[in-house]
């Protein structure tokens, strides 16, 4: 019955995911690096400065064992240290970092096999990073194509945003997928194409928009010392995020990579991880 479906739609639309703030903390960080002793201290100092938002009460553990640098040893180390965060960069012990085509074996394993968040930093020798990158985290952006109910993503966004900093909560719908569906709809005589395009477009952005509004309300309610801003729209993922990062001088981009079905890792996360090399990225 058409009327049942109409009212169910009204009630489903009224049922929103409301963000509830949960304070996180990082007490232990595992740094996986190939820096030699002479440059290691300098690198660690820069990293501590960049992640000053974590506070001083953090235990830093280094894994730089070149002789035993295998995926097995790395995972054993993670299991032993049980860090709250793993920091590393692309293509360790290799010159491939100069080419934006891969992450390196250790990152492939870390991002998919470990439960901990993995932060991918720009390569220490990379001179093409943005001027604002690796200085501090006062402009952080969370990114997803299914933001609603992503409480954990928001929690990490808040954790990593420095006081008085700005947290951008972004949701970009893929324009190409939308256009593809619209093309199919335009061939179905029973559906008014213009009306469907208008309604679907509005509905696709409404849910994440409402969720972000609840995040902003929660930030106010919990008196968090940060500003939360909303970015919701349509576009091509990688180019749109690259544009946003440059426009808002983002220091850290946070996204999911360990969905139940690993969709993010096989979807837009992997190309972003490979191509966005100018700032730090955090994969949850």
């Amino acid at each position, binding site marked *: 019955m058409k009327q*049942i479906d109409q*009212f169910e739609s009204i009630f489903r639309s*009224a049922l929103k995911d409301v963000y509830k703030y949960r304070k996180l903390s990082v007490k232990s960080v595992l740094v996986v690096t190939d820096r030699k002793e002479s440059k290691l201290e300098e690198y660690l100092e820069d990293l501590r400065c960049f992640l000053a938002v974590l506070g001083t009460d953090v235990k830093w553990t280094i894994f730089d064992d070149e002789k035993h640098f295998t995926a097995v040893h790395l995972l054993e180390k993670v299991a032993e240290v049980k860090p709250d965060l793993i920091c590393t960069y692309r293509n360790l012990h290799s010159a491939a970092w100069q080419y934006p085509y891969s992450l390196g074996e250790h990152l492939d394993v870390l991002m998919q096999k470990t439960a901990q968040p993995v932060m991918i930093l720009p390569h220490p020798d990379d001179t093409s990073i943005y001027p604002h990158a690796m200085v501090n985290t006062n402009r952080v952006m969370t990114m997803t194509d299914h933001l609603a109910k992503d409480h954990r993503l928001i929690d990490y966004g808040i954790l990593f945003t420095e006081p008085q900093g700005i947290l951008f909560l972004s949701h970009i719908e893929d324009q190409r997928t939308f256009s593809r569906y619209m093309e199919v709809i335009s061939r179905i005589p029973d559906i008014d194409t213009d009306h469907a395009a208008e309604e679907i477009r509005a509905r696709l952005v409404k849910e994440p928009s409402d969720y972000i509004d609840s995040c902003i309300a929660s930030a106010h309610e919990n008196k968090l010392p940060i500003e939360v801003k909303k970015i919701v729209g349509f576009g091509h993922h990688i180019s749109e995020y690259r544009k946003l990062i440059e426009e808002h001088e983002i220091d850290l981009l946070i996204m999911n990579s360990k969905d139940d079905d690993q969709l993010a890792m096989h979807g837009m996360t992997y190309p972003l991880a490979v191509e966005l090399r100018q700032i730090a990225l955090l994969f949850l």
Partner: protein
Amino acid sequence: MTAGFSFLLLVIIAALAFEEKLHAKKSVIIGVSAIFVLLLGTFFGIIPFGAITLPGGESADMPVYIPAIDWEALAIIIGSDIFVAVSSRSGLFSWIAIRLTKLSRGDPLKLLWYYGLMTVLFSAMLNNVTAMVIVGSLTAVSLSRLNRTADLGPFLVVEALLTNIGGLLTLISSVPNIIVGRIAGITFLAFFAKAAPFVLALTVITLLQAAKQFGVHALKGDEEKEKALQVVSGFDENDGIVSRRFFWFCALMLAAFICTIAAESVLPLVKDLGMGFVALAFATIMLLAYRSQADEFYKAIDWDLIGFFMGLFVVLNVMEHAHVLEALGKGIEMLVGDGRSAGGTGALLLSSAACSSVMDNVPVAAMLAKILAAMNTPGTSRLWWAVVFGANLGGNLTPIGSVSSLVAIAIMQKHGVGMPFMTFCRKVFPFVAIELVLSILYVLAG
């Protein structure tokens, strides 16, 4: 000849009862029947043709089937349909529904009570189908979100039962009430004064019984309560409100509509123009808000019901001229006596309920009301109430007895919770048994 027409009436009733099997809408069945009986009536010369004398003494030429129809009742139905369609657009009813859901804090027992009371209220204000659709779809969405899909069947069964109980509350809550009220000359306030205490008591009894029979309990643990609260807190009652101004306009108009209908018999001018005028006038005022899209709301009118209603009155009019109703009246007179015997009144109520359980209660109420009118039954007789209570509550006996039960079944099927015919009957029987016993006692006591 009377016997022949009586047989014809029986065939028409049987055709209506097997509407689903015939794959034909009831308006079409009754329309064809009306054509046939009009032709037969004309052939046998039983239909009085000629000019009609109007109240001012003037006479007017009019097709014979026009005065056969109760236009006032039709005006009430059409006006109410449009009024409800426009006011639904304001988000008012979904706002009430969501507010109550949030008030329950996601507790199943409170939800059962709030949804139950809301069903009664909505079915009294709207038509039973719209009430069932609103409350039923909200029930499906909220129970699914609360991971309580197993409770969906019992909740919908109770709501289906309560739409017919709520349909008893006022004179305009259901079509049988309008028909019987119009023929018996019962005013809105008199109807409400008689029906309200019973509806209230029966609602409470039904909900207490439902909680016990279906094992719906309150949440106990704090964690469980917190989780449920979080889920229902996600509902935003303002989501469906397009314009705050229109929302309040509709709320005010709804209150004004109910008050005007209630006071119709004493309001100057309005008392002469009647309830149909009130319904159509309010519908037209509401349409002003959507004046450029008014035609969209005409789709909300149940044209099948309107066509059925018109055809039915034409058929009954011919049957009246063929003395069929008089003959049936004599049969009913034997059953109910002079209307004073308890057994007779009870028997009429049960007959009305039994017929309404397998077919549409509109023809049942219309035919019995016409028969009672032909018997010169006074408006104060309890027999009218026996017809009203039986026609409304009888629909609860089977899933095909009322459209709201069919809506409930459709929602269950949509959510993969099937309920076969006999299971439905088995589940509702204890409720209906109590309803009928109490209604007989109440009618006899009145």
